[in-house]
């Protein structure tokens, strides 16, 4: 059948198909031309669309970040305050334990008398006021 394409279709079919082909081809070219010609318009708006899309995604994250940042800031300041308090307490504990040691030594001393102990206690009572 391929070798003998003698029986041709009616003439109007050929004309119709040629017209269809030309029409489709021009439509396709016109579509490309239109889009290429209006590229600038699409460019800005496409960027807008993407930015909007990005914003809708980023906004909650940003809010969360500022929230966490302020939380971290307050936590950090609180931590500084607590560290200071701990330092003071540590100092106090050291001073108290030193006083206790001194008193214990005075009490356990072989030649301990009530008077000696009283003088030791009286001496160390002044100590916390110094600091």
């Amino acid at each position, binding site marked *: 059948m391929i070798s003998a394409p003698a029986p041709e*279709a009616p003439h109007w079919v050929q004309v119709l*198909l*040629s017209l269809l*082909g030309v029409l*489709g*081809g021009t439509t396709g070219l016109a579509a490309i031309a239109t*889009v290429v010609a209006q590229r600038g318009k699409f460019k800005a708006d496409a960027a807008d669309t993407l930015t909007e*899309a990005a914003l809708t995604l980023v906004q909650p994250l940003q809010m969360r970040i500022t929230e966490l940042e302020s939380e971290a800031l307050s936590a950090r300041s609180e931590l500084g305050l607590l560290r200071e308090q701990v330092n003071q307490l540590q100092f106090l504990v050291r001073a108290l334990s030193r006083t206790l040691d001194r008193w214990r030594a005075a009490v356990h001393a072989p030649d301990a008398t009530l008077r000696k102990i009283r003088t030791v206690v009286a001496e160390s009572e002044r100590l916390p006021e110094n600091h």
Partner: protein
Amino acid sequence: MVNLRARAKPQPFEVTALVATSICGILLLALDARPPSVQMSMPEPVQVGWEVALVIVGLGGLLGILWPGQLSTGLGIELASVLVLGTITGMYAVALVAVAGQQGVVAASLIAAVPAGSFWRAAQIMIDLRCLAKGHQCSTHRRVVGGVT
């Protein structure tokens, strides 16, 4: 962080039709064979243009779908390819009916589904392009967002 260049999901029927079209055109050109219905119902220059269009449309359509640049440019290329795809498959369907008559009912109707789907897709793309150029709350926009999340 997130890939904002995400676009619509690929359309399986469109992609397969485009791949098949380019393969068909390349085979026709390479083997120098033409279907008898085309030989009988188209003038010689139209036949050549038809064959070349098969290849161009297939490859061009895939290029438009995979276009790495602007979404609108890719959609434009896809639109043109889909329009021409509809035209040339429609031409083949007409040729089949004209030559084979009742014997070609199955082939012609199945092939006629390709132009129908092509023009449908072309209308979709045109609506999307108009949305891209004008509105913000349109399907393309929603699709961009939907594709991302």
